[in-house]
């Protein structure tokens, strides 16, 4: 009897603890949020996009019922871009067919909910590869072009350069073909348009050849990085992709880096390496290590040391472009209640890099932020998108923070991020918009001076503001003044 009492008490206690541990709003399955788990809200309904006619009717119904419509891909944006309180969420992930592949002209047409992984699986056998995308391949094409994403490729600019054309379902129910020659005004608006100009139905993308790269990792002091990149990486046309990391380990905090270059290699046939890798190795130990990185200073040091050793050890490894463009991500998945890993990204003009890193380091230290890692990418100047983040050649510093979701934790994060954004803006830099909306309205306007045009055009193409999301509400200000 005593044993039974102990056993059942244990089970009940475990359940009660778990109940309270998971009772925060970010864990509520009846609320909608995004990858950040910030600001969960109740929506009217989530509708899976399936057919074009269904989507047209959906917009009609929404207009009639005076409901707002938000568009969602994989919901990896983190600032409420994919939902709006009491609105309809159109989930595009099931709208993901590959429509056609033009091998001769290296183009592919896909429905917007297709992910990069879907595309890689479709084109790899033809020796073709994606031109520009994020490091991971889990995102949808619609979500990626709506934020004008960028990645490791340093030769092709941001995503907008690899979009040939797309079809856009507008607020009035019309479908427009958009390209540089047709309805050209909409091209730089809806690309980087955060779902505010219409539902992107299908997209034709420009592809590249799959290639074989040798991957090499070099470590250096942060102070040498700009010179290294400009003289040894940028000038070497065989280096096609590049990514670097800055140390967040206590002993070398922001002063050490390693850079990974993907250099064209002809020593072996591509076919030997072109089979797509499907499994992510070492997820469980990786997850454990990353948890140590989150929790302890020594964990950060351990992670940095192991990472540096691992990548240096792997130097010389050969990898196909398609395989290089499917970075591991599962080990970073984090769903613990009450805190979340949030990204912030700053675009800094090349010459200002060192100076900015130092200024940011001071803020991270004095505010005691839990900075988990920083990756650095290079983005070419690209003024095409109306909300362009790369007004000149920039380094993008992608910072991952572990942040408490409590209101106190959030307001602390907000004021810290605002200090960092000020440092970026004062050096001619910008910040990336798909992430949590910590920056103030004034900072948004300073970083994106074309905001007026953007919001004016939004109202011109969608006067009833049918397409709505939390990001728009936060930054449209008092309408398009």
């Amino acid at each position, binding site marked *: 009897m005593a044993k*039974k009492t102990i*056993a*059942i008490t*244990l*089970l009940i206690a*475990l*359940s009660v603890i*778990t109940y309270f541990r998971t009772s925060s709003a970010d864990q509520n399955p009846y609320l909608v949020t995004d990858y950040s788990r910030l600001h969960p809200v109740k929506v009217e309904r989530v509708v899976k996009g399936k057919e074009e006619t269904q989507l047209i009717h959906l917009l009609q119904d929404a207009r009639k019922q005076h409901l707002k419509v938000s568009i969602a891909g994989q919901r990896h944006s983190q600032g409420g871009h994919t939902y709006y309180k009491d609105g309809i969420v159109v989930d595009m992930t099931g709208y993901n067919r590959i429509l056609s592949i033009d091998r001769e002209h290296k183009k592919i047409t896909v429905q917007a909910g297709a992910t990069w992984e879907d595309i890689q699986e479709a084109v790899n056998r033809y020796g073709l590869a994606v031109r520009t995308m994020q490091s991971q391949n889990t995102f949808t094409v619609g979500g990626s072009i709506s934020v004008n994403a960028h990645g490791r490729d340093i030769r092709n600019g941001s995503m907008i350069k690899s979009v040939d054309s797309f079809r856009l379902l507008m607020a009035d129910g019309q479908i427009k073909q958009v390209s540089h020659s047709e309805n050209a005004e909409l091209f730089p608006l809806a690309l980087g348009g955060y779902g505010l100009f219409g539902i992107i139905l299908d997209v034709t993308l420009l592809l590249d050849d799959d290639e074989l790269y040798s991957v090499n990792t070099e470590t250096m002091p942060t102070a040498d990085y700009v010179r290294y990149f400009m003289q040894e990486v940028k000038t070497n046309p065989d280096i096609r992709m590049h990514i670097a990391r800055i140390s967040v380990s206590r002993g070398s905090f922001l002063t050490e880096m390693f850079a990974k270059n993907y250099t064209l290699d002809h020593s072996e046939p591509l076919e030997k390496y072109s089979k797509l890798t*499907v499994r992510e190795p070492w*997820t*469980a130990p990786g*997850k*454990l290590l990353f*948890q140590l990185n989150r929790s302890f200073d020594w964990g950060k040091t351990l992670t940095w040391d192991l990472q540096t050793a691992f990548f240096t050890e792997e130097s010389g490894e050969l990898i196909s472009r398609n395989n290089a463009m499917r970075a591991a991500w*599962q080990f970073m998945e984090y*769903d*613990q209640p009450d805190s979340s890993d949030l990204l912030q990204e700053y675009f800094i003009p090349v010459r200002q890099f060192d100076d900015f890193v130092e200024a940011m380091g001071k803020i991270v230290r004095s505010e005691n932020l839990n900075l988990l890692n920083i990756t650095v990418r290079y983005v070419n100047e690209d003024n095409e998108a109306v909300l362009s983040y790369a007004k000149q050649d920039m380094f993008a510093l992608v910072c991952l923070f572990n942040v408490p979701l409590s209101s106190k934790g959030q307001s602390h994060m907000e004021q810290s991020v605002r200090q960092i954004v000020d440092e970026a803006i004062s050096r001619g830099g910008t910040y990336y918009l798909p992430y949590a909306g910590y920056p103030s309205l004034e900072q948004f306007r300073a970083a994106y001076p074309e905001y007026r045009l953007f919001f004016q055009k939004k109202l011109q193409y969608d006067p009833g503001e049918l397409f709505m999301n939390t990001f728009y509400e936060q930054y449209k200000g008092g309408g398009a003044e």
Partner: protein
Amino acid sequence: MNLSWLIRSQSLVTLASGMIYPYYLLFLKNLGNSYSKYGLAFAVFTISSALVSQWLAPRLDRYSQRMLIASSMGMMAAMLAFPWVMSYSVVLLLQLLMGICNAMQKMSERQLLADYTIPGGRGAAIGNYHFWTTVASGIAVVLGGYLIDWLTINVLFYFSALVYAASAWAVWRMQKADRGKESVQAQKTKSVNG
């Protein structure tokens, strides 16, 4: 004594299965994109379980303990295999295997439970049996959730395999205890006769 080993071993079985089962369902659902495909995986399980039960039935009284061991080992193999599965047809094969294990386990546990108890005095034993196996699966499922949160579902599969191995060992212990008893009894009979 044997009843308590039966309860121990089967509590381990429910621990192992309870830990993985709800998450396994999610895992399967993620494989097939339609519910009917998902239903099919389960139908396959029941088909093999039902068919094999007819072959097992006449052998049950003699071999129930061995069947329990075979079932635990089979489940262990399935758990070790799942993380490596890359095609739906292999999932179906594993469902077949698990159907067979299920028939062996369910039939033997009932048979042994009846053997180890006497008519008119089963209530308490069955109550015990139910209590421990249920609490074991309850604890398992909560801990399983934490384990996936912190690590991965694959680790949970491996962990479950380990517990299945432990349950096989517990049945083997029970078998040994049974044999011990049989030989004591045989000796007693001998001495009475002699």
